[in-house]
């Protein structure tokens, strides 16, 4: 009992208090969103934010997925294509380049790599506006490809892939495969890639987050709502709330349905995103 009053336990209690306070700050709005998504439009405005009222989640979901001919479902599919397929292809491309930068010697290599890193620092506005103009000349504005293709470029992904290639793939193993007569492509696919699989998931998550968070490019490039990713769709619904307050609960439910699956996936893949941050920072 005496030990409870030592300065050490006091600071431990204080530590917990601080972390609980900040957890309330970070989780509070998400909890509010989940509770709000079960309410009717009238209850959203008329009842206390953190208390349940009439449980209308199912009705809300039906409204969400049937509104405007089920456009919300399309937005989810689009988002899967832009962010999941896009991140996957982008990661493959980054790992190929990262492998080349780490495992081959060629003239001007480090200069070229520095050039790629500069690309990682470039503000999005500097490329997004001219991308729009160039795309309009190529007829790519307001098309799937006008958004999808630029998303595949991830200089930061190349940087991470190079670091992972150094950390996970010993040169001796590659040399052994070469001596056995495997060509470079097969060596990469059958030897290097399996060794980097956890790293691949990590970079996939980082790239996914980048595309998932990019609002600027789809905003410029797309005017047809059927091509929107879900974040842009919800934004467009939110602009309608001013004239049509009926939209409030749709925006709330739509936001909840968008982020809940991603939160679940990230919870399951915790060790991978943490690894990515560790590698990106410590080295």
């Amino acid at each position, binding site marked *: 009992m005496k030990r409870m009053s030592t300065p050490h336990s006091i600071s431990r209690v204080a530590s917990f208090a601080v972390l609980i306070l900040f957890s309330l700050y970070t989780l509070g709005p*998400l909890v509010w969103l989940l509770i709000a998504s079960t309410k009717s439009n009238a209850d959203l405005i008329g009842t206390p934010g953190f208390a349940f009222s009439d449980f209308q989640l199912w009705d809300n979901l039906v409204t969400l997925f049937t509104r405007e001919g089920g456009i919300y479902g399309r937005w989810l599919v689009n988002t899967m294509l832009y962010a999941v397929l896009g991140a996957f292809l982008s990661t493959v491309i980054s790992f190929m380049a990262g492998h080349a930068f780490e495992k081959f010697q060629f003239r001007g290599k480090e200069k070229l790599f520095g050039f790629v890193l500069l690309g990682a620092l470039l*503000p999005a506005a500097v490329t997004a*506006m001219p991308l729009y103009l160039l795309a309009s000349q190529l007829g790519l504005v307001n098309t799937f490809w006008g958004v999808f293709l630029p998303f595949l470029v991830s200089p930061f992904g190349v940087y991470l892939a190079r670091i992972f290639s150094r950390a996970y793939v010993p040169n001796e193993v590659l040399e052994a495969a070469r001596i056995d007569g495997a060509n470079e492509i097969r060596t990469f696919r059958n030897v290097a890639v399996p060794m980097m699989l956890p790293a691949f998931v990590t970079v996939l998550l980082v790239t996914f987050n980048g595309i998932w968070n990019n609002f600027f490019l789809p905003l410029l490039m797309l005017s047809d709502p059927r091509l929107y990713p879900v974040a842009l769709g919800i934004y467009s619904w939110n602009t309608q709330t001013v004239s049509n307050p009926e939209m409030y609960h749709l925006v709330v439910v739509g936001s909840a349905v968008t982020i809940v699956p*991603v939160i679940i996936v990230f919870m399951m893949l915790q060790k991978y995103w943490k690894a990515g941050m560790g590698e990106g920072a*410590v080295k």
Partner: protein
Amino acid sequence: MTQHVARPARRGRSKQGVTRSLQVAFFLFPFFSLFLLFTVVPVVYTAGLSLFSEQSDGGLGLGGTQTIFVGFANYLSALTSPEFMTSFLTIGAYCLIYIPLLMGLSLVLAMVLDSLVERARKYFQLSLYLPNIVPGIIASVIWLYLYTPGISPLTDAFGALGLEWSLDGQPQAIFAVMNITIWAHLGYNVVLFYSALQAVPRDVLEAGLIDGAGPTKTAVSIKLPLISGTVGLAVLFTVIGAVQLFAEPFLLRSRATSITSTWTPNMFIYNAAFERHDFGLAAAASVLFAVIIGLASYFVTRASNLNGQRS
């Protein structure tokens, strides 16, 4: 990019060397073709565009537009535009509070986390990190509703405390935006710093403990210098992200009256290009903005390097 030479060890066998170069090209081709098309070409195009201006032919606006070379006129009009300058002042004021606040809070929370028992750490890391997964625009929607009297439990609490809730006015707007960005990025930086702290060798800390250093002293004079590299990198990425502020104020604009359409540099560029259709001005502003970001990154990197060398 097209000239790859074989590894020195293989230099004798030229036929194999050529095959090898082709194979290197195979690995680099997908990335660099996309990088060229969607990064390098747009940048060059922006630089070119910034030197031209579009003017309409004829007085009646018929016959379309004509593109003429105007030299540095677009740069001059960007630099003398009060809106552009104000957007830099706004973003400067925002960064001056946001960056120290975010970095300070993240460091303190990471240190506190580092001092806890294993199981609690895992739980708190996750709960602090979750907002980072929410896309910026949806985070803004959530907070917009939490700022809306009638819908929000927060504004009611404000009223109960006898305070008046308002988003009007510049400081309120800056804090309303900053709250969203801190909410979204706090956990990311905490986990980042925490991972760096985990890499600090335990015997170094034990040595400090034996020398009689308390928890606060250990944190400031032992742990902090050891993770200064990570902190420097985090500051760099935070600065680059923060100056590009767009989605949050763009969305809050419907409620916060002091957020103008040219509130941040990115909003100015968007406004010039897509509302005023002055692509020359938008391009010049983009180039100036990129140069400023480049300079800022250079100074942040330099400062954190110097800091690292001193310790």
